[in-house]
C-alpha cells in the first residue's frame, strides 16, 4: 500500500471504483456466510478467489482456502491427481493476487503453505520469481520466498550465488542482491563447501568484485556496505582469544597497605587491598561463557583448594561476558608465592556465537604480601583525595621498569596467535588500504574516508596484536577529524570513534602511556603516593575503551571529558579511586558499571548532569513485569529513610547504596540537593566524606 505511486482519480475512475466497492461488499457478505457455515463447495471456493483477486490482503479468505484444501484432501474419493490440481489452483489464485499486490504478506505465505504440502511442481517458481524480481528487485518478500524455494528445491548455494552475481551485473546498486550474497557466502564458508574451504581463497575474489562496483560509482552505497561485511569477515576469528590478564604474565605483584614500599617493586604492580584477597582478571576479545574452576585451573603454593569462583563482569546479568574475575586469598605474608593460571586446557569456554576457545594458554606470576597495619591502612584509604592539577606530578619510570603493556607480547606468543594473524589477512587489508588511498586521491569521499579509517585500525590490530604498535593512528585520527567537518550530521559518531582511537594510541607504547602516569602528591599520604594515577583528563573523550590495557589501574582520572557513558569500566577491577567530575553523565543509571567495582572507595562524579532527566531508564519506559530485574530492592529500613519527597530518587539510592564508598563528590548535579544528600548519608554507612565535608 505505501511506496506505490498513486494518481489523482478522474470522475469516470471514481465511478468505476465505486462500482468495484459495491461488488466487493456483496462478495464479502456472501463469503463470510460461507466461511461461517463451513461450506466448501466449488462455488464457495471460487467466490473466495474472486474476493482475493480484488483484495489480496484479505487474510481471512486465505485461511478459508487453507481450510477448504484440508477439507478436500480429507475426502475419501481424493486421488493424487486431483490433489495436485487442487493445489495448482491455489498457486494460480496466489499468482493473480500477487499481480494485484506483490507486497501482500498473506499471498506469499499462502504460496509457501501450498508448496510445503509437497505435491506441487516447484520448477515454475524460479521463473515466477524472476518475473517479480525484475519488476521490483528490492522486494523483500520475493527475496524471502526465493530463499524458501531454493531450500525446498535443494538448489545449491553456488547456483544462488551465481544468481546474485547476475542480479548485481544487471544493477549493482541492488543492495538486496549484495545482502543475499553475504548470507549465501556465510553459509558456504560455514559448511566448508567445495571451493569455499578457505576464506583466503574466497574473500580476495570478492574484494575484486566489489572494487568494480565501488570504483565505477563511489556514490552508490550498496557496494560500500558489502565491503564492510567483507572487512568483518577478514578480521574476525571464530574462536575467542584471551587478550589480556591481571596479573600479567611473569609479573611480580606486591600486595600491601602499610606504606613502606619495597624498592624493587614497581608501582604498576603494587596493589593496595583491604579485602584480604586479590582479583585475577581474564579479558577475552569477545563475550564467552563457561569460565569456571574446571576450564580455568590455578596452581599455587598457598591455596591448595584450587577452587575459584569465576564471575562474569557484565552489567546485563547474563552468563556471558568479555571479562571474568575470580578472587584469590592472600598468601601468608613472609612467603613469596608463585601462581600459575591455565586457561582453556579442558574444553568448555565457548563464545556467544557458539565457538570453542581453542588456544589453551598459561600464565604465571609471583605474589608478595606485606603486612598491613589495619589503622594506617584505613587512614590511607579514607583520606581525602583532591583531583587538582597541583596534587599530581608526572611519574618518572626507572629505565628497566616493567610496564603492564610490555607483557602483552608474551601472552600473545603463548596463545599461538600467529595463526590468526595469517598472511593472507594482512595482505588483503594492505591491498584494500592501497586501493582506497588511490580512490581518495581522486576524490573527497566521506564513506571512503570512513572505510579507510576502519581498514587502517584493523590492519594495525592484526599486524601488532594487542595494539602494542599503532603505526597508523595519527592518520586515522586525522581522518576522523576530517569526517567531523565534512559530515557534521554524524559528528557524534565520528567523535566516539576518534576517542577510542586516541585511547588505543595513548596506551599503545610505554612512552605514550608514561605521559599519562602521575603520582598523587599529598603530605598526609604515603601509601597512595606510591601508586600510579592514570590521568586521562581534558581529552574531550566522548567514549572510553582500551580497557584490556588498563586492568592494572587503581587510580584513574577521567575528569573534564565529555563522557555520557562509562560502559566497560567494570573490567577495571582494581579501581579504588575514580575521578569522573565535569563530564556529561546524564543519569544515575549510567553509573551501573560501578556496582561491579568492589574495591572502589573514592568517587568523584561532581558537575555532571545526573538528575536532569526524570525518565532515564527502561524501567520507566516499560511496565512489563519482566523488566524489573533490578530496583525495588531496597529493604524496609532503607525505604523508611526515604520519605515520599524523595521517591523520584529511588533509582539513585538503588544504584549508590551498594558502593562501598568512603568519599563521594556529587556537587553540581541536579539530583544533589540537601534532602537528597542527607538521605544518602544514611543509606551509605561507609561514607566518611561527602562533597569535601567530613561526616560524623
Amino acid at each position: 500500500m505505501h511506496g506505490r505511486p498513486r494518481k489523482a482519480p478522474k470522475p469516470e475512475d471514481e465511478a468505476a471504483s465505486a462500482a468495484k466497492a459495491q461488488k466487493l461488499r456483496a462478495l464479502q457478505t456472501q463469503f463470510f456466510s460461507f466461511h461461517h457455515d463451513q461450506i466448501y463447495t466449488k462455488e464457495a471456493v471460487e467466490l473466495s478467489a474472486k474476493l482475493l483477486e480484488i483484495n489480496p490482503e484479505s487474510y481471512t479468505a486465505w485461511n478459508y482456502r487453507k481450510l477448504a484444501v484440508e477439507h478436500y484432501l480429507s475426502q475419501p474419493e481424493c486421488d493424487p491427481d486431483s490433489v495436485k490440481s487442487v493445489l495448482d489452483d491455489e498457486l494460480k489464485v496466489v499468482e493473480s493476487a500477487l499481480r494485484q499486490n506483490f507486497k501482500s504478506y498473506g499471498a506469499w505465505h499462502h504460496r509457501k503453505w501450498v508448496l510445503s504440502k509437497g505435491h506441487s511442481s516447484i520448477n515454475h517458481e524460479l521463473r515466477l520469481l524472476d518475473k517479480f524480481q525484475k519488476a521490483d528487485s528490492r522486494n523483500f518478500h520475493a527475496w524471502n520466498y526465493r530463499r524458501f524455494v531454493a531450500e525446498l528445491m535443494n538448489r545449491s548455494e553456488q547456483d544462488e550465488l551465481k544468481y546474485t552475481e547476475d542480479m548485481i551485473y544487471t544493477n549493482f546498486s541492488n543492495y538486496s542482491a549484495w545482502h543475499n550474497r553475504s548470507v549465501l557466502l556465510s553459509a558456504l564458508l560455514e559448511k566448508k563447501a567445495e571451493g569455499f574451504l578457505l576464506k583466503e581463497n574466497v574473500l580476495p575474489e570478492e574484494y575484486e568484485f566489489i572494487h568494480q562496483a565501488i570504483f565505477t560509482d563511489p556514490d552508490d552505497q550498496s557496494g560500500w556496505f558489502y565491503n564492510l561485511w567483507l572487512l568483518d569477515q577478514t578480521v574476525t576469528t571464530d574462536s575467542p582469544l584471551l587478550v589480556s590478564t591481571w596479573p600479567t604474565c611473569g609479573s611480580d605483584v606486591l600486595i600491601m597497605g602499610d606504606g613502606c614500599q619495597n624498592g624493587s617493586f614497581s608501582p604498576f604492580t603494587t596493589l593496595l587491598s583491604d579485602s584480604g584477597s586479590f582479583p585475577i582478571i581474564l579479558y577475552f576479545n569477545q563475550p564467552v561463557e563457561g569460565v569456571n574452576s574446571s576450564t580455568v585451573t590455578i596452581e599455587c603454593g598457598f591455596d591448595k583448594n584450587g577452587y575459584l569462583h569465576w564471575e562474569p563482569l557484565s552489567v546485563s546479568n547474563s552468563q556471558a561476558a568479555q571479562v571474568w574475575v575470580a578472587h584469590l586469598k592472600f598468601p601468608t605474608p613472609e612467603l613469596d608465592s608463585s601462581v600459575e593460571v591455565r586457561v582453556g586446557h579442558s574444553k568448555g569456554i565457548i563464545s556467544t556465537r557458539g565457538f570453542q576457545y581453542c588456544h589453551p594458554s598459561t600464565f604465571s606470576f609471583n605474589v608478595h604480601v606485606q603486612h598491613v597495619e589495619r589503622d594506617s591502612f584505613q587512614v590511607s584509604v579514607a583520606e581525602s583525595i583532591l583531583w587538582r592539577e597541583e596534587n599530581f606530578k608526572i611519574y618518572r619510570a626507572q629505565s628497566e621498569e616493567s610496564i603492564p603493556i610490555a607483557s602483552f607480547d608474551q601472552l600473545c606468543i603463548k596463545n599461538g596467535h600467529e595463526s590468526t594473524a595469517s598472511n593472507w589477512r594482512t595482505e588483503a587489508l594492505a591491498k584494500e588500504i592501497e586501493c582506497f588511498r588511490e580512490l581518495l586521491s581522486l576524490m573527497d569521499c566521506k564513506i571512503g574516508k570512513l572505510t579507510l579509517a576502519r581498514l587502517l585500525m584493523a590492519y594495525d590490530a592484526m599486524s601488532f596484536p594487542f595494539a602494542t604498535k599503532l603505526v597508523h593512528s595519527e592518520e586515522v585520527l586525522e581522518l576522523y577529524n576530517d569526517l567531523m567537518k565534512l559530515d557534521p550530521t554524524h559528528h557524534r559518531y565520528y567523535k566516539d570513534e576518534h576517542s577510542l582511537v586516541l585511547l588505543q594510541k595513548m596506551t599503545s607504547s610505554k612512552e605514550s602511556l608514561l605521559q599519562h602516569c602521575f603520582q598523587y602528591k599529598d603530605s598526609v599520604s604515603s601509601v597512595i603516593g606510591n601508586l600510579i594515577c592514570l590521568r586521562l583528563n581534558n581529552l574531550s573523550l566522548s567514549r572510553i575503551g582500551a580497557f584490556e590495557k588498563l586492568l592494572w589501574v587503581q587510580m584513574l582520572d577521567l575528569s573534564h571529558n565529555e563522557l555520557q557513558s562509562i560502559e566497560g569500566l567494570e573490567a577495571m577491577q582494581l579501581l579504588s579511586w575514580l575521578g569522573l567530575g565535569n563530564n556529561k553523565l546524564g543519569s544515575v543509571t549510567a553509573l551501573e558499571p560501578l556496582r561491579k567495582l568492589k574495591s572502589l572507595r573514592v568517587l568523584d562524579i561532581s558537575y555532571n548532569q545526573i538528575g536532569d532527566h526524570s525518565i532515564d531508564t527502561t524501567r520507566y519506559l516499560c511496565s512489563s513485569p519482566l523488566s524489573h530485574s533490578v530496583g525495588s530492592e531496597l529493604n524496609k529500613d532503607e525505604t523508611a529513610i526515604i520519605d515520599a519527597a524523595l521517591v523520584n530518587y529511588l533509582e539513585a539510592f538503588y544504584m549508590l547504596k551498594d558502593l562501598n564508598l568512603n568519599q563521594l563528590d556529587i556537587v553540581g548535579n541536579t539530583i544533589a540537593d540537601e534532602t537528597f544528600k542527607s538521605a544518602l548519608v544514611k543509606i551509605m554507612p561507609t561514607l566518611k566524606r561527602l562533597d569535601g565535608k567530613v561526616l560524623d
Partner: protein
Amino acid sequence: MEMESFSSLTVTERDQILVEQQVFNIFKTFYNIPPSSQSFMLELQRENHVEYLTNGLKQLGPSFCVLDANRPWICYWILHSIALMDEFVDPELEDNTIDFLSRCQDPNGGYGGGPGQMPHLATTMLQSIHLEKLYSFIRQMKYASGGFRMHDAGEIDVRACYTAISVASLLNILDDELVQNVGNYILSCQTYEGGISGEPGSEAHGGYTFCGLATMILINEVKRLDLSSLIDWVVFRQGVEGGFQGRTNKLVDGCYSFWQGGIFALLKRLNSTRGEKSIPLGDGEDSGPDSSETTASSDATGKGLIEDLSQGGSHIEKGDQHDTSSRVNSKRHAKVKPLFNSLALQQYILLCSQDLNGGLRDKPGKSRDHYHTCYCLSGLSVCQRSWLEDDDSPPLPCAVLGPYSNLLEPIHPLYNVVLDRYREAHEFFTGS
C-alpha cells in the same frame, strides 16, 4: 568481470537524484521567500489535518477496498493522529468507532480486521476486553522457534513478535511462557548491517528494527542485541533530505520518521548505548563528492535552518564550557544532543511530507494517506522531544521547528500511543 558491465549511473542513484532535486527545490523555494511566508510553510496545518482525518472516520472512498482487512488499523492511524494534535473526536463518532472495534473481537479472543473477520495479531494491537481469551489467543500464535504467527496458520515474523509482546505488556498479561525464546528469534534476525530484518536471512529494515528493539526492551533482553552496530546502522539511514530511508540504499520515506526516529527515542532511554566492537559495521549513507556538494549547496540555501541548528548547538557549547555556577543554574535546560539530526527531520516532515490541504505523505509527488499521516506526525512528536529526556516538561522553542504551536503531544515510544492515553490504559489494566 569487466568494468563496462556496470552502467555509469545506477537506477537507484537516478531515482535518488530525482528525489533530491524535488526536495532541494522545495528547500530552495523556502529559503527564498520572505520570513512571514516561511513561517507559514513551516506551520503544521492542524485544522486541515484534523478535517482530513475526521472525514476518514466517517466514510472512506472506494479506493480503500484493499485496506478492508485493516480497518481497525485505519481507526488507529486516524485516532492516534488526532490525539497527537490534542484534538477530540465528536462523541457520536467516537462511540461508533468503539462499537465497530468491539465487533471486531472474535469469540476466540483476538481481534479481526472487521466484523466477522478472523482474529489477527496486528489488529489485536488496538484494544481488548476479554483478557483471558486474548491471552490464550496470543499463546496459540506462539511458535516453537520463539516467533509468533500473525494469525492462525499465518506468517511468522518480527512484526508478530512485537504485536504479541506489546499487547500482552500493555494489558499486563505478559509472562515467562509468552516470552520464552522470543529473544533468540529476534537475535537471529539482526543482520551484519546492525539493523533487524523481518525474518532470519532477510536484510535490515527500519520497521522491523523498531519492532525488534521495542520487543527486546519489553522482554528485558535488549542487551543481548549488538546495540553498537544497531546504532551505526540507524544513524546512517538519515539522508541529505533530512528524512529517513527504510533500508540500505532505498529512497527517503516520511513514515520512517517514526520507525527510525522512534528507535532513537528508545535508545536514549537505554542508559548506555555503546558497546565495544572493533569493526563497527553499518555505514553506507550517501557519500562521495557529489552528495557532499549537494549537502553543501543545500547548506548554503538552507542558511536559516543551519542558524537554527547552530543556535541549538551553541546552547550546548555554552553548557560545556561551564563554569560551574552557570551550569547549575541552567540545569533545567541542560540537554543531550540526539543521535540524529532532529531539525532536519522536522524540516523534511513539514516541508516535504505535509500536504497543506490536510494529511501527510511519503515524499513530494506522492498522495497523502492515513498511514503516512500517522507515522509522520508520530515522528514529528519524537523529534520535538528528542533534546529532552523528561517527557513531562515541554521542549525549548529552539527544539521545535516552525511556530511553537507545532508542538504535538508526547508519545510512549514503545507503543506509539499518546503518553496520557498510555498512562490511563496502564492504570486501568494494572489496577493501580
